[in-house]
C-alpha cells in the first residue's frame, strides 16, 4: 500500500520534472509549436519589419490548421519599435512567458545584438534577419542569420574592385551610425587581402543633408572609387552633392541602397551608381533551373497572390528565417537544442536569399556568390559589367 503510494509520488515527480525540463516540447504535446518573432513593425526600421511580417503571415496561412506534422504552429510576433531595449523585453517575454522553442528576429542588427546574451543563456535558437557583422562574428552557438552579412557584402565589393575594376585606391564615406561604422571597419579590415588601400575615411550623420565638405576632401585625394556605406537618405544626398560638385568619381554603395527609394531620392544622380545586393533583386542572375531559382519562383508567386506586391529583400529574409525554423521543427520536433543542431547542420539549403550552409564556425550561411554587383542605368537596375 505505502510502497504503491511512494511509487505514485515518484512517478508524479519524474513526470513533473520532465515537463519542466522539456519547455517547448511540452507545449507541443499540449497541442502546438510556439515560434516567437521579434520584428521592427514601427520606428525607423518599420519597412523591414513589415515586409518580414508579411512573409511570416504567409507561411502561417500556408501551414494552416494542419500546422507542422499535424500539430498547429503558433507564431507570436512582437514589435520592438526599432528599439534594442524593447527587443530585449520582447525576448524575455517570448522565453519566460510564452516559452517559445525558437525565435525569428530581429529586424535590425542593434536589436539582434541586444537579445543575444539572453537567448544564449536561455538556449533558444534565433534566426536573425540582420546583416551586422557582430551578429555572426564570432559565431554564437544559438544565433544564426539569413541576411548576407556586412562582411560578405564587403568581400563581394572588394572582389569587384580587385578582379573586375582592377583598382587599388578607394575612399570611404559612411554613416556615423552602427551600420555605417561597422561596414567601414569591415572594409578596412578586409582591404589588404585584395590589395586595396583606403586613402580617405570620412563620415556623416544619419540626418545630415549636405555632404559637400566630406566630398571636397575626398576629391582632393587620389582615390579611384568612392565606397559609400549607409542607408537612405544619406547616400542619396551624397550622389546629389557629387552631381552638384561635378565629381566624376565612381560611386559604389552597400546593400543599404538596394531599393527603389534610393533611385527616387537621388533622381538622375543615381545613374552610374553601383552597389552589391542579393541576386534576388535581379532574378535573371540566379542560375536558371537551380533549386535556388525554384525557391524564389514559388515564394514570389505565393507572395504576389497573397499581397498583390512584389517580394523585396526583407520579405525574403522573413521567409527564409521562418521556413528554416519550421523545416527544422518538421524534421526534429520542438526541442530547442535539436532545432539548433538541425540548422547548424544545414548544407546547401536552397532559400530565397541564396543557398545556405551553416557549421559550428559559420553562422552566416551565405557565400559571396549569393551577391551580385548592380548598376543603375536610366533609373533601372542592370548587372554591373566591368
Amino acid at each position: 500500500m505505502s510502497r504503491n503510494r511512494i511509487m505514485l509520488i515518484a512517478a508524479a515527480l519524474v513526470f513533473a520534472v520532465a515537463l519542466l525540463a522539456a519547455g517547448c516540447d511540452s507545449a507541443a504535446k499540449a497541442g502546438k509549436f510556439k515560434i516567437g518573432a521579434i520584428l521592427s513593425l514601427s520606428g525607423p526600421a518599420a519597412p523591414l519589419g513589415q515586409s518580414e511580417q508579411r512573409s511570416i503571415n504567409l507561411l502561417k496561412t500556408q501551414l494552416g490548421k494542419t500546422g507542422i506534422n499535424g500539430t498547429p504552429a503558433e507564431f507570436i510576433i512582437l514589435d520592438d519599435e526599432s528599439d534594442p531595449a524593447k527587443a530585449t523585453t520582447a525576448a524575455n517575454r517570448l522565453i519566460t512567458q510564452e516559452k517559445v522553442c525558437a525565435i525569428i528576429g530581429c529586424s535590425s542588427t542593434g536589436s539582434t545584438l541586444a537579445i543575444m546574451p539572453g537567448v544564449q543563456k536561455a538556449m533558444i535558437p534565433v534566426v536573425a534577419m540582420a546583416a551586422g557583422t557582430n551578429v555572426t562574428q564570432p559565431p554564437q552557438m544559438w544565433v544564426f542569420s539569413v541576411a548576407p552579412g556586412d562582411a560578405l557584402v564587403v568581400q563581394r565589393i572588394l572582389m569587384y574592385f580587385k578582379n573586375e575594376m582592377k583598382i587599388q585606391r578607394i575612399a570611404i564615406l559612411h554613416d556615423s551610425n552602427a551600420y555605417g561604422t561597422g561596414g567601414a571597419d569591415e572594409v578596412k579590415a578586409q582591404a589588404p587581402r585584395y590589395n586595396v588601400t583606403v586613402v580617405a575615411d570620412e563620415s556623416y550623420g544619419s540626418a545630415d543633408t549636405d555632404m559637400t565638405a566630406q566630398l571636397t576632401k575626398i576629391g582632393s585625394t587620389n582615390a579611384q572609387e568612392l565606397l559609400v556605406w549607409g542607408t537612405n537618405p544619406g547616400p542619396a544626398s551624397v550622389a546629389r552633392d557629387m552631381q552638384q560638385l561635378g565629381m566624376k568619381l565612381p560611386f559604389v554603395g552597400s546593400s543599404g541602397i538596394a531599393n527603389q527609394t534610393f533611385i527616387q531620392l537621388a533622381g538622375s544622380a543615381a545613374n552610374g551608381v553601383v552597389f552589391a545586393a542579393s541576386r534576388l533583386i535581379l532574378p535573371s542572375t540566379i542560375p536558371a533551373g537551380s533549386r535556388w531559382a525554384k525557391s524564389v519562383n514559388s515564394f514570389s508567386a505565393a507572395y504576389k497572390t497573397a499581397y498583390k506586391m512584389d517580394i523585396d529583400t526583407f520579405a525574403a529574409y522573413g521567409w527564409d528565417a521562418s521556413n528554416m525554423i519550421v523545416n527544422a521543427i518538421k524534421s526534429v520536433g520542438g526541442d530547442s537544442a535539436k532545432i539548433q543542431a538541425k540548422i547548424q547542420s544545414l548544407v546547401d539549403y536552397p532559400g530565397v536569399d541564396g543557398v545556405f550552409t551553416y557549421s559550428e564556425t559559420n553562422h552566416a550561411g551565405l557565400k559571396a556568390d549569393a551577391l551580385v554587383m548592380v548598376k543603375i542605368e536610366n533609373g533601372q537596375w542592370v548587372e554591373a559589367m566591368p
Partner: protein
Amino acid sequence: MRMGDRNQVRLLWGAAALVAVVVVFTLIYKGSTGLQWILSGLTVGSIYALVAMGFSVIYSSTRVINFAQGEFTMLGGMMMFTLCTRGGLPLWLGFLLTVGIVTLLGAGFERAAIHPLKDQSVITVIIVTIGLAIFIRALAKWIWGTDPVKVASFTGDKPLRFFGASIVPQSLWVFGLTLIAVVLVFAFFNRTLLGKGMRAAADNPDAASLVGVSASTSSLVAWSIAAAVGAAAGAVIAPINFAAYDAGAMLGLKGFSAAVLGGLGSAPGAVVGGLMLGVLEMITAGFAPSGYKDAVAFLILILVLLIRPQGLLGKPADVKV
C-alpha cells in the same frame, strides 16, 4: 550693470571676430574648397535659422520652448510633397496652401493642447509640447509612411558655379526665405502694437491685458506665426533635405541649439546662431575627421550655456528693474 553690458558687448564682438577669423582662414588656406564649405554651411545654417526663429517667436511671447517646432517644418515638407509632387499643384499655390494648412494646424494645436494649460507652469506646457511632437510624428508616419520622399526643386537642379565652388538654386530660395522671415518677424515684434503687446504679455500678462493683449491671444498668435515660419521653412528646404516623417526631431534639436546660441527670443539672434552653427559645422567637417562635426556643434552649445546662457544677442533673463 554698466560693467556687465560692456562685457556682453565684448563677448559678442569676440564671438563674431572668432568666427570671422575662422572663415577668413578657411578661405585663404583652402581657397575654392573652403568657399564651398562656407556656402554649404550657410545653406545648412539658414535651415537651422528658420527652425530657430519658430522657437524664438513662441519663447518671446509665452516663455515656452516648443519642442514640436521641428514637426511644423517636417509637416511643411510633407505637405509640399502631397500637394505639388503627388497632387500636381503649381508651386506657388502648393506653398501658400502648405503654409495656410500648417498655420491652422498650429493654431488648432494651441487651442486644443496649450490653451487649456493657461494656469499651469511653463514646464508643464513644455512637456506637453514634447507629447505634441510625438503625436504629430506618429500621425505623419500613419499618413505618409516611413520612406523619405523627394520634392522637386523650385527652379531646377543645375548648380550655379561661383569662384570654383557651386551651390544649388534651391539654396538661394532658402536664403531668400530666411531673410524675408527674419525681417517680418522682427518688424512684427518691434513695430506693431500687437507684437509689442505680445512681448509685454510674456513678462507681465496682467499689465499687457490692460492694453488689450491677453496672454491667451498672445499664445494663439505666437503659435500660428511659429507654425507658419516652420511650414514655409519645411516647404523650401524639402528639395534639399528629403522630407521624412522623422526629420522633425533632428531639425528641432539643431534649431534649438541655434536659437540658444543666438539668444532665445531674438529673431536676428536666431539667424546669427543658425548661420554660425551651420558654417562652423561644415568647416569642422572639412578640417577635422567629419565625425567630429556634431560634437563641435554641441560643444559650442554647452559653452554658450555655461558662459552666456542668454545667447549672443539675447537680453539677460529675469532682470528686475
